């Protein structure tokens, strides 16, 4: 992370744009790297003096200072070979005695001091100040980075340095959010995960500047997220920073030269990896999908470990959550979130060692107990029991009323003062809703009245299923704006913004 005084940005209004190192800087970077090679083995004070002198090849001063910092952070200093403080003490006392006796000779004094510590005079003279920062021997990395990788590490340090100055960071991720969310949790960052207004995941993270303590430690933890972002399909990061005494916004986007980290691990643990391998071998009818769509519960997004989907009937879909080596508190929190999703078909794999009593489990969840290894056969048995129970028993399945099933502009054709908007505003994910009827059209109704109307296509699809509806639950509300509607429909709209509910319906089949 670059320190604040080295950070280079161009500020225009309230926007700050980082000054990245690019291909145009490679020539002077190469000269700088060559200079560093010459400094190997020198005292650190000599290195600093050398670097403060004008460069051999003209380079943008701010960029050069950033690159020097990045290179210095790759270098090391030799370990201290002896107890130099004791040596200095012995030599100073010897020198004083010699002066008092009128027999001061530098070589003799060094030799006497060295003798008292069992050293050779030459070694004592060489290492008399070896422990002081400026005297430590400077070592460059072997091999030295090439200009391209130096530019990349400087750019990363610049972006990370900016994050350290942030009071608030918002990241919108489209595709592959799980790895970032996982890292956020591992590093214990103050973060909330929500669904973005567009089809993505939004992370709101507190920045180090919003804290009073541990700001550097927190800043480092936050900075560790950055190299993971290039692995997402698309991201948009906005950091609100204090730079040069003023608040500015810094945007980081996929085109920015932030080098990616090592490829993130596909599986969170070896347990998951082994289960995925075993499950694939054990059957051909069900597919195990890694990182399925996040699910919303009480305004918070959860990222299930797997989805189990039938190859020929994709409506037969289960989420699979592995509860491995976690604390009881974590398990309790997780279970409370799962309780809030009564109609999510879910298979929970729980480590026996956790000793979680049956009363704590969500009643609709299938549980597979395991010890060290999850048996694919047990998971398959739990799924099959849910979907292919003997004739006469009720089999349940969840289907979703998607945007395509709805008359999307229905609420938009009502003025902002219409009660439908108030009804929608009071709803939350997890609330029970039901089907209703308005003439020949089907509607979705909340406690106080209709909140959405199905399209003709939606009515045709859902009408035959109405007698099998067990319950319906609001999953989320999608924001809709007048500008999103086709021009020919806009004339009929009577408000600028409205909401459209997405509903999960539990169906019974006999």
């Amino acid at each position, binding site marked *: 992370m670059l320190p604040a005084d080295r950070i280079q940005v161009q500020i225009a209004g309230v926007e700050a744009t980082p000054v990245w190192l690019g291909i145009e800087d490679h020539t002077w970077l190469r000269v700088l790297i060559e200079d560093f090679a010459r400094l190997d083995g020198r005292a650190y004070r000599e290195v600093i003096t050398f670097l403060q002198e004008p460069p051999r090849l003209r380079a943008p001063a701010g960029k050069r200072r950033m690159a020097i910092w990045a290179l210095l952070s790759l270098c090391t200093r030799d370990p201290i070979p002896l107890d130099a403080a004791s040596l*200095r003490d012995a030599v*100073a006392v010897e020198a004083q005695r010699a002066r008092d006796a009128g027999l001061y000779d530098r070589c003799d004094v060094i030799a006497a001091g060295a003798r008292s510590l069992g050293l050779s005079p030459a070694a004592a003279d060489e290492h008399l100040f070896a422990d002081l920062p400026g005297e430590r021997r400077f070592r460059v990395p072997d091999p030295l980075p090439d200009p391209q990788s130096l530019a990349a590490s400087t750019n990363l340090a610049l972006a990370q340095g900016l994050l350290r100055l942030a009071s608030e960071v918002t990241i919108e991720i489209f595709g592959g959010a799980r790895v970032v969310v996982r890292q956020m949790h591992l590093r214990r960052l103050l973060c909330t995960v929500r669904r973005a207004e567009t089809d993505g995941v939004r992370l709101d993270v507190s920045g180090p500047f919003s804290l009073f303590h541990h700001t550097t430690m927190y800043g480092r933890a936050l900075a560790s997220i950055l190299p993971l972002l290039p692995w997402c399909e698309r991201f948009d990061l906005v950091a609100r920073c204090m730079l040069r005494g003023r608040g500015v916004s810094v945007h980081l986007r996929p085109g920015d030269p932030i080098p990616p980290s090592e490829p993130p691990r596909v599986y969170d643990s070896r347990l998951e990896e082994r289960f995925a391998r075993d499950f694939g071998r054990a059957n051909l009818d069900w597919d195990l999908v890694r990182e399925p769509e996040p699910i919303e519960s009480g305004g918070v997004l959860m990222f299930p470990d797997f989805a189990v989907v039938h190859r020929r009937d994709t409506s037969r879909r289960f989420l699979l959550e592995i509860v491995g080596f976690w604390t009881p508190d974590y398990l309790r929190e997780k279970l409370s979130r799962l309780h809030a999703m009564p109609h999510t078909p879910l298979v929970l794999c729980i480590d026996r060692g956790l000793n979680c009593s049956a009363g704590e489990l969500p009643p609709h969840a299938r549980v597979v107990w395991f010890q060290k290894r999850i048996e694919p056969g047990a998971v398959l048995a739990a799924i099959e029991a849910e979907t292919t129970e003997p004739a006469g028993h009720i089999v349940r399945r969840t289907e979703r009323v998607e945007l395509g099933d709805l008359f999307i502009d229905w609420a938009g054709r009502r003025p902002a003062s219409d009660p439908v908007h108030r009804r929608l505003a009071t709803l939350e994910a997890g609330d029970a809703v039901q089907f209703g009827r308005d003439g020949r059209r089907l509607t979705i109704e909340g406690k106080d009245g209709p909140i959405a109307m199905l399209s003709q296509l939606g009515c045709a699809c859902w009408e035959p299923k109405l007698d099998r509806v067990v319950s319906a639950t609001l999953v989320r509300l999608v924001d809709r704006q007048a500008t999103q509607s086709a021009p020919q429909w806009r004339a009929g709209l009577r408000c600028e913004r409205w909401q459209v509910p997405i509903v999960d319906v539990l169906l019974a089949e006999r």
Partner: protein
Amino acid sequence: MAREHLVQPITCDIGPKERTRALERFSKGELCILVSARVLNEGLDVPAADIAIMVGGSQGSREYVQRVGRVLRPAQGKRAIVYDLVTRGTFEVRRADKHRRALASG
């Protein structure tokens, strides 16, 4: 200077343990010379010192008074001498005069 004349240094890079040991030896008379860069300007009393040689000019009158104050700590029968090295024909001469006046005015 410390390397060339084998004198105990007290600088910002010297740890507190070593500083304390050096000052103790100085008080006992086991060491008669210390070389310091700014660290001894303030906060430390060195009543055993009776000669100060200021090689680098202090920046302001306050810093000068503080430095001189290190060796002007009262002790029985003490007579202290302060040498302020300046380069003839430079602004250092005028600055040293100004500092001396500040010291005299208290």
